[in-house]
């Protein structure tokens, strides 16, 4: 019973990831792509959460946290790049 529910949920997440992937490929502007990638990262979190339940294990919770951090950092870095043209600024601007 639980497995069926999990499977259905996984299928849903996969479908949403497909849609997001379409946006990454097609997305007219870079900002669209970045938002889509960020969402793919979050979907990956749910995929791994679902798989952890499916495998009856708790060792993947760290992976979930890690993806959360990575997705955040990546999105921020991209946003900064769009805003300023560089990701890491030099200190010698004075």
């Amino acid at each position, binding site marked *: 019973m639980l497995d069926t529910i999990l499977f259905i949920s996984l299928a849903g997440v*996969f479908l949403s990831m497909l849609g997001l992937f379409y946006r990454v490929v097609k997305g007219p502007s870079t900002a669209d792509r970045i938002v889509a990638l960020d969402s793919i990262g979050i979907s990956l979190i749910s995929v*791994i959460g679902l*798989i952890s339940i499916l495998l009856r294990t708790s060792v993947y919770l760290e992976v979930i946290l890690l993806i959360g951090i990575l997705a955040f950092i990546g999105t921020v870095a991209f946003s900064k790049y769009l805003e300023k043209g560089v990701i890491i600024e030099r200190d010698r601007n004075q």
Partner: protein
Amino acid sequence: MSLLHLAILLPLFASLFIPIIRRSLHRIHTGWFVLAVPVSLVLFFSRFVSEVAAGGVRMEKMPWIPSLGIDFTVYVDGLSLLFALLITGIGALVVLYSIYYLDKKESLHTFYVYLLLFMTAMLGVVLSDNMIVLYLFWEMTSISSFLLIGYWYQKERSRYGAQKSMLITVFGGLAMLGGISILSLLADTFSIREVIAASGAFKDEPFYIAALVLILLGAFTKSAQFPFHIWLPDAMEAPTPVSAYLHSATMVKAGLYLVARMSPVFADTPLWFYLVSGVGMITLLYGSVSAVRQTDLKAILAYSTVSQLGLIMSLLGVGSLSSEGQQDLALAATVAAIFHLMNHATFKGSLFMMAGIIDHETGTRDIRKLGGLAQVMPVSLTIALIGTLSMAGVPPFNGFLSKEMFLTALTDLMHGGVRDLRTYGTILLVLGVVASIFTFVYSLMLVKETFFGKRNELPKKAHEAPVGMLVSPLVLVTLVVLVGLFPNALAKPFIIPAVEAVALKTPKVDIYMWHGFNLELALTILIFGLGAFLVLTLRKWNRQAGAGLFNRIYDASLVYGERSSTGLHDAVMTGYMRSYLVYIFGFIVTIVLSTLWLMDGFSLPDRASDVTAYEMILLGVMLISAVAITFARSRLTSIVLLGVVGYSVALFFVLFRAPDLALTQLVIETVSVALFLLVFYHMPDISRKEERIKFKLGNAAISILVGATVTLVALSALAGREFASISSYYIKNVYDLAGGGNMVNVILVDFRGFDTLFEISVLAIAALGIYAMIKFRKTGGNPR
């Protein structure tokens, strides 16, 4: 280490002091100090004469590499002693001659160092009993000869001659090393003496013939036998003392020594007889005909040396006949060979010195420019006349005696030989007579063109040479006359022991001038008559020689060898990474697939775990992105797709229950995608152009083959898993022994922590490398 070892190495030790002497005592010609070495060696070796003549041999052993059976064993018997005396005796005369020949302004120290080096090498060759030590000294003669030929290294011809002789003699030397190796394996010893003793046992071994041919190759190249004679005329660019010493009296006889020394091992084999006597005879004829066509004094003498060496070689070949009924004949031929070997050393040495004197006093060696020197250089004329008449085989000089013995051996071979040798003997006799005629012609031509006829303008004003220069050739021609008059005096001390060493039997030596009326006499008269006629009509038929056929072959093979290897290199080493990858992958595919095919190694695993739907979906994602990478138009797409593959791998790690791997993979993939993007961002605009990867059939084929190969190997490897994994040990002990719950981490830092240590260092090196590359770029090594 005995006195004999010290005697062999004395010139080598002496050569260490030559540069010091040259520097500190530069007023006195360095040659005077060098002269002491060969003179003392002559005295030392002549002490053995009576002992050896009484049938005694001397053997001294000095361990060198005992674990390999390589000892520096010195063995003195008749043959070795004869050669040792030739080397040291003519060495002394040549050193004396060189004192007057070479100016003090020349770099004398190099000359004498090379010469002494050569003397040690040559003594080592003839006195060694161990074949490896013999080979060592053999190569030493090649190297010192190379150095001496190239003594005037500023001249292009000298360098050419030195290189040529080096290439040819070292080629032969290496062949000889092969022969030695085979022989030592067959006889299970490096000692020549023991090889001879054991030689009966391995005559039927399959590699016996190979050893024979290889050793003969070494002997033929060293002794300038046809067709390897071509280096000798070009070696005439050396200073004349060197030509007289190395290229007439000693080094070129090393091959003869080897043939004589190895005769007891190979003598029963018909191939040995045919090769040695046949090649010797061809060399004799070819050398004598070529000598007539030369215009340079030393070139004439060089070809004459070639032909005389051929004569001795063919006599040694006949001397190796040992089947029944021919022993006397073989023994007589060996006696003739040894006798002529000594005679040749005397008259050829004197002739070379005479050529050097003429060159020294007139400034040219070209017989077209020379002429009419008889009045101004009477002593040289005497020397030349005696030397050439002896060489031509005119009585009462020693050349006549050995030539008579040569003819006797050949006629005996024709008459008395076994039936199947009669034709061969006749051919040899005819060739030998023709060659003798030409020998007569060039010998007389040499004197006639140099000393008689009208006087030409010469570069220098001709006058007689200083006394010191004339001493050595005079000593040699005195020997020529003395030996000619009293040949039997040499028999007991020298010839009989030497022949005993070669043929292992005691010969009867009775050399005399008058043989009675027989075929030999008729042939001698024929030779003199026809020869005299040809000398008188020389201008009518003689043409000067260009580069001979074999020289052209040699030059062409050098050019062709270089060109073809350059061509091969250019064709293979294209400089494109793509070509090398094609080679590497092509090689891997060929080797692995052919191994699988030949060993019948392919098999499918019979057990496999079930495949879940998640794995199928993930695999589909990976496949689609991997294929899409190869068809992507822009690099950015490729980078993103590569990221997709990486994240999918991380998901695979999740599915296959590897949380640590998944964590690491995610972080690393993120970082490397970021790095790819960085590289992409900094690419020049022109290469950012959207362009599909060009399709190349070869690339496609190889990539498909590589994929197939790896798949096949992986499947076969999985099928062949025969032992249980070691992992149960870790599972059992991860908590009890290591006190940890995470098995992957415990393995990384505890069970197999060493790997981790060095992977940490890899990362450190990579970080340092990146820092260095960024910091030190384009500034010539200085930090910015």
